């Protein structure tokens, strides 16, 4: 109910504000344009994140200082800690980044985002940036309409920066004329009460507009126009720093447990940094003066001093929190426990990764492996083979011939169907939301791998009927043939498990060996079946069953090998390409 009333209430309050004050309208329009610029900037960077950013992320986060610097540098470049947080959460969800590294990046991002305040205070207020905004917008929009992905990306970035500048311009103008009408400084409060109240206001405003950048621009422009006191501006900046965690918390709602832990770490970081700043506000003001003096910032340039304060606040936060990241991770793991991992729900798919093709593809790959793990369990249950027996070739050659009746349909519905549907739905969403041309083939290959897994389970269901019947048969010949079929499928699973444990490019070629063994072991090969019938060892009815079931076993193997080619080998690279070119065709395969 409250949720439904929230948006209309905001609209009503804003409309009332626009009615009574044209200056407020200008400031609000400035914030809106600024936020739209941020959205556009993020959209632009997403176009370039198809690979490069993700690759850099993986190699540059193995040490704490590296992940911290990574957070600082990328956020400085992209001017969006939200985008960096989303990428970090998506990597965590896909299991490609540890929580420690994730926390390092997100702490670094908090410092990186403060460079925005420097840019606004340094450039935004001195230069008539609206003059730069107009050409940027024109060039940006022209580029957005181009078909090339890169040109579109540049267009969005240019347009985004243009809108940011334009937004700052409107806010500045609004506050300038506002100054003439109302003097906000009469509401200025001093002392601890003022500090706490303005911190709360800063937190609330940032939580509503979900951008610490926008709040900081408001603070800086209001401060430059003399509408708020310097002390209150500092408190508002502390509040903005705490409020910007709301974006990360909202992003983490859909993420897995590690994503939620990351958001909690950011909240703790911001609150701790905020509390330190509130308690030690006087030493902070002194430190800001010292740094500003060293940087050559004039004493009356309060906007730049606010930017210095914002950076110091986060720097102190990092210095205090960084030594405790290990302990923080332990605590967060205790507070936010991993729910019992379900075999039926997706473990890696997360809508946060959809905007990042590379991460989405990696998460999808992991999920297909999860689907295979479920099908593997079903197949070994039907074959009545334990994982220990699979690891030992000696035990595989002398499997006991008793089988239990397994309801494959029930297991399929329980462990495969819903997960399969989720994967297919994710692929459809992925195709609908991003430009999939660059990795379309990989996407189709993964979808086909899922279909192969499902087909293999269906084939094993058909095979089960006669396996149960003939393994319990008094006829030793047919029992041996069916045990051979069972052993062949088990051997294939063993080979695939070895490949799954050591996924590399060599797996592609090693699969040829597996295929060759499979062909050669076929009961129908080499006239074995004819001699069994001629010798009167099996009846013609048994022979037809054996032919059908041998073909089912062959299909299981074919489907699983096709699947393994996709999910147990690394994604596109020169190494894979070269190995792929040596994979043998059916006719080249030694029989």
């Amino acid at each position, binding site marked *: 109910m409250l949720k439904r009333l929230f948006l209309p209430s905001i609209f009503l309050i804003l409309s009332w504000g626009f009615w009574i004050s044209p200056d407020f309208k200008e400031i609000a329009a400035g914030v809106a344009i600024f936020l739209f610029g941020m959205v556009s900037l993020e959209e632009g960077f997403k176009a370039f994140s198809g690979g490069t950013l993700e690759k850099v992320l993986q190699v540059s986060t193995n040490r704490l200082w590296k992940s911290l610097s990574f957070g600082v540098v990328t956020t400085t470049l992209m001017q969006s800690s939200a985008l960096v947080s989303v990428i970090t959460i998506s990597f965590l969800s896909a299991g490609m980044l540890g929580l420690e590294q994730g926390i390092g990046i997100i702490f670094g991002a908090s410092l990186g985002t403060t460079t925005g305040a420097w840019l606004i205070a340094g450039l935004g207020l001195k230069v008539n940036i609206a003059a730069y905004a107009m050409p940027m917008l024109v060039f940006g929009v022209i580029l957005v309409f181009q078909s090339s992905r890169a040109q579109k990306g540049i267009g969005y970035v240019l347009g985004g920066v243009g809108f940011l500048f334009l937004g700052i311009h409107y806010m500045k103008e609004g506050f300038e004329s506002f100054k003439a009408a109302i003097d906000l400084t009469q509401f200025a409060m001093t002392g601890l009460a003022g500090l706490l109240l303005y911190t709360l206001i800063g937190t609330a405003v940032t939580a509503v507009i979900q951008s610490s950048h926008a709040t900081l621009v408001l603070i800086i422009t209001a401060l430059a126009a003399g509408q708020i006191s310097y002390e209150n501006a500092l408190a508002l900046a502390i509040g903005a720093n705490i409020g910007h965690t709301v974006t990360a918390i909202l992003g983490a709602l859909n993420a897995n447990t590690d994503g939620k832990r990351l958001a909690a770490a950011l909240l703790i970081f911001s609150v701790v940094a905020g509390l330190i700043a509130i308690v030690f506000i006087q030493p902070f003001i002194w430190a800001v003066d010292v740094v500003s003096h060293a940087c050559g910032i004039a004493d009356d340039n309060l906007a730049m001093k606010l930017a210095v304060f914002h950076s110091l606040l986060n720097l102190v936060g990092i210095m205090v929190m960084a030594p405790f990241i290990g302990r923080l991770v332990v605590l967060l793991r205790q507070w936010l426990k991993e729910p019992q991992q379900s075999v039926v729900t997706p473990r890696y798919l997360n809508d946060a990764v959809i905007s990042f093709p590379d991460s989405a593809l990696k998460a999808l790959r992991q999920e297909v492996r999860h689907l295979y793990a479920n099908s593997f369990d079903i197949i070994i249950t039907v074959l009545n083979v334990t994982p220990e027996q699979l690891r030992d070739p000696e035990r595989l050659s002398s499997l006991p011939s008793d089988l239990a009746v397994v309801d494959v349909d029930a297991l399929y519905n329980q462990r495969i169907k819903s997960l399969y549907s989720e994967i297919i739905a994710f692929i459809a969403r992925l195709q609908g939301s991003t430009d999939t041309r660059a990795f379309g083939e990989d996407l189709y290959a993964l979808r086909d791998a899922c279909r192969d897994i499902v087909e293999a389970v269906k084939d094993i269901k058909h095979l089960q009927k006669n396996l149960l019947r003939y393994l319990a048969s008094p006829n030793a010949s047919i029992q041996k043939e069916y045990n051979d079929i069972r052993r062949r499928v088990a051997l294939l699973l063993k080979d695939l498990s070895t490949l799954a444990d050591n996924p590399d490019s060599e797996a592609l070629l090693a699969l*040829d060996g597996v295929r*060759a*063994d499979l062909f050669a072991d076929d009961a129908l090969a080499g006239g074995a079946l004819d001699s069994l019938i001629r010798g009167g060892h099996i009846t013609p009815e048994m022979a037809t069953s054996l032919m059908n079931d041998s073909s089912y076993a062959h299909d299981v193997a074919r489907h699983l090998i096709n699947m393994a080619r996709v999910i147990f080998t690394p994604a596109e690279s*020169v*190494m894979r390409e*070269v190995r792929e070119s*040596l994979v043998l065709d059916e006719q*080249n395969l*030694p029989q």
Partner: protein
Amino acid sequence: MKKPSLLEKLHRFFNWKLKRQEARRKQLKLLLKKLKKEESELKAKLARKEEVSRKEHMERQVKVLHQQRKKGIALLRELGR
């Protein structure tokens, strides 16, 4: 041998297609060496009559490796060397 001109050097440096082909060729050469080593090791094992129970399997693996190498050598010729 004539030294390549600066223009040729620059062309080579910025030609990504050529670079990729060069990388493929290098990878292929390395892979062929590896396959040859694997094949000769398996052959040696067969000659020493080790793992008699898996003789057929090993013979098949030798054939597979041989076929893969044959395919690789043909591809290497296509790539230029």
